[in-house]
């Protein structure tokens, strides 16, 4: 048995640790974070990154609980930035603080960065051939298609509500058709859009 005063201090320390870091923190060394996220970064072909990350971080390494991971995923989706990168930042931060965040993010981006640079080098070598540009135009069509598909999938989350649809439409017109600068449009659209969501959410609760 520890003396009472000492135990209190220990409890206090434990609470503080609990508040800022999840208990699974001690398992993750910076080296193993690097390895895990390099692997994840290299497997980021074709998306589905959240699922791969879940498999590695929760199931294989046991660094996070289910619930913690789900919360992390929501944060990664809602804050600006690419989802897989945000996941790496936040998981690294929770497991090992700032150094963890930097290492996980670097490891997540480095493989894709390398591939994209290699591809662009190949492109430069082949850009003299007319076929290269044709093939890339075809790929751009698929890229646009997947962008539109993603837009439609995200639009389903508007649940057919009139005002949010009008906001989506007006943002599209301002940025896509009128070519107004994106950053001010977004900042100006956030307050009314959030307010509308708040009021709609409240209506739903009361009605």
């Amino acid at each position, binding site marked *: 048995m520890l003396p009472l005063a000492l135990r209190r201090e220990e409890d206090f320390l434990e609470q503080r640790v609990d508040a800022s870091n999840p208990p699974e923190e001690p398992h993750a060394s910076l080296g193993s974070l690097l390895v895990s996220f390099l692997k994840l970064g290299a497997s*980021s072909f*074709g998306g589905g990154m959240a699922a791969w990350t879940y498999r590695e971080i929760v199931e294989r390494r046991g660094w996070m609980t289910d619930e913690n991971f789900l919360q992390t995923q*929501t*944060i990664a989706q*809602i*804050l*600006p*930035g*690419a*989802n897989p*990168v945000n996941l790496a*930042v*936040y998981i690294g*931060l929770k497991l090992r603080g700032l150094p963890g*965040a930097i290492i996980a993010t670097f490891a997540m*981006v480095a*493989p*894709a960065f390398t*591939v*994209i*640079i290699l*591809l*662009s080098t190949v*492109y430069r070598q082949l850009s003299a051939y007319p*076929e290269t*540009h*044709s*093939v*890339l*135009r*075809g*790929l*751009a*069509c*698929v*890229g*646009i*298609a*997947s*962008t*539109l598909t993603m837009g439609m999938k*995200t639009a389903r*989350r508007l649940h057919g509500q009139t005002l949010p649809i009008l906001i*989506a439409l*007006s*943002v*599209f017109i301002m*940025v*896509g058709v009128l*070519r107004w*600068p*994106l*950053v001010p449009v*977004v900042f100006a659209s*956030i307050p009314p859009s*959030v*307010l509308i*969501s*708040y009021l709609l*959410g409240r209506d739903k609760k009361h009605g």
Partner: protein
Amino acid sequence: MDDDKLLGLVLLCVPLSLVSFGGGQTIVASLQHQTVDVQHLLTSRQFTDLYAISRASPGPSTLIVALIGWGISGFWGAVIATLAIFIPSSALICIFGSWWQQHRLSPWGRAVERGLTPIAVGLIVAGGLAVSQSAGLSLFEIATTLAAAAFLTLTRVGPYPVLGTVGALYFCLSAAGKI
């Protein structure tokens, strides 16, 4: 000259990073407009090519800025552009992540989560339009886009088989002199 261009790209990336709700696809409209029409860092043909490469590559579509940076000043241009697009949003996660985790279940937290969705939808579709217009799609290419979109929506096939098929088709048509 190159330094000025690189600075222009960095100054473009940093604010975009902070509003890239949902990732690279939400900011592509602005990237296209700024790099092609305003700052003249790229021709629209180059932009279409780089867009295609970035969409066919693994990893976040945000990495198109690495390609633009590489075009301006090689390897370090790519590194600097990548840092400029990822550091601001990552810093936001570090600063607000835990705070947000505590407050996201409050009524206002939920309202923020839901309120960002329509903005992201508008931006994503605007990005699709910006790239289509910049590329000046032919009727055949519009048909390709619609077919690919239908395929991606209706089937569970991933993007790589679709990219491979369309790439092969366009190669054959181009080699045969049909497009």
